């Protein structure tokens, strides 16, 4: 049986999340136009649903990669990318 592991945090899993966040900020600065707070909340909720749908990359079995259970996983890179896009929009001043 495969055991879920939390530590040691493998570098390969954190790296994908960081890369998604950085690239999200890069492309988020390109978005123009304002978004209301309700819209931001809706997009964030949709992104969590989508992250459950797409699942984590399949190679690891740790919580950092998003495996909560053996049959249930969230792709944290997707959520990190969405958060990065919102941060990038804040840089541009598009958040109203």
């Amino acid at each position, binding site marked *: 049986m*495969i055991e879920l592991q939390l530590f040691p945090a493998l570098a390969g899993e954190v790296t994908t999340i960081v890369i998604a966040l950085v690239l999200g900020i890069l492309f988020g600065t390109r978005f123009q136009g304002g978004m209301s707070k309700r819209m931001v909340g809706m997009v964030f909720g949709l992104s969590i649903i989508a992250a459950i749908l797409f699942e984590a990359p*399949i*190679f*690891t*079995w740790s919580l950092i990669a998003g495996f909560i259970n053996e049959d249930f996983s969230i792709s944290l890179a997707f959520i990190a990318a969405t958060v990065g896009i919102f941060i990038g929009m804040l840089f541009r001043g598009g958040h109203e």
Partner: protein
Amino acid sequence: MIEINLQLLCFMAAALLVVIGLGGMLFLDNIIKKIIAFTLLSDGVNLALVTLGYVEGGIVSILEPGTSAGAFPENAVLIFGPGIVLTNIVIGVSTTAVLVAVTMVLYRRYGTLKASKVLKGERK
């Protein structure tokens, strides 16, 4: 009677696509339709290349957790075809874009999409 498996079927589909595309490129007059026929032909070639690597009862060539690493090399599909097709699909987009751009310029100059009129060289 040959038993038809997936590989045989896909080879037939590839041959069909190649021939349809070739016929469209040769016998149709409209330039946009020639471009569509060109994409069909390249689709057929892609399909033939991917079908070459198919292994009956094989597995996807991604190592998944929980499987056996020892059985992977024998069962995984041949990867050389898909590797080339992956670049071919994306490059196909840009070649199609070039063809459409040239078509727009030809239309500005000759006012028609008919290849027969363009070849005669009648200005608008």
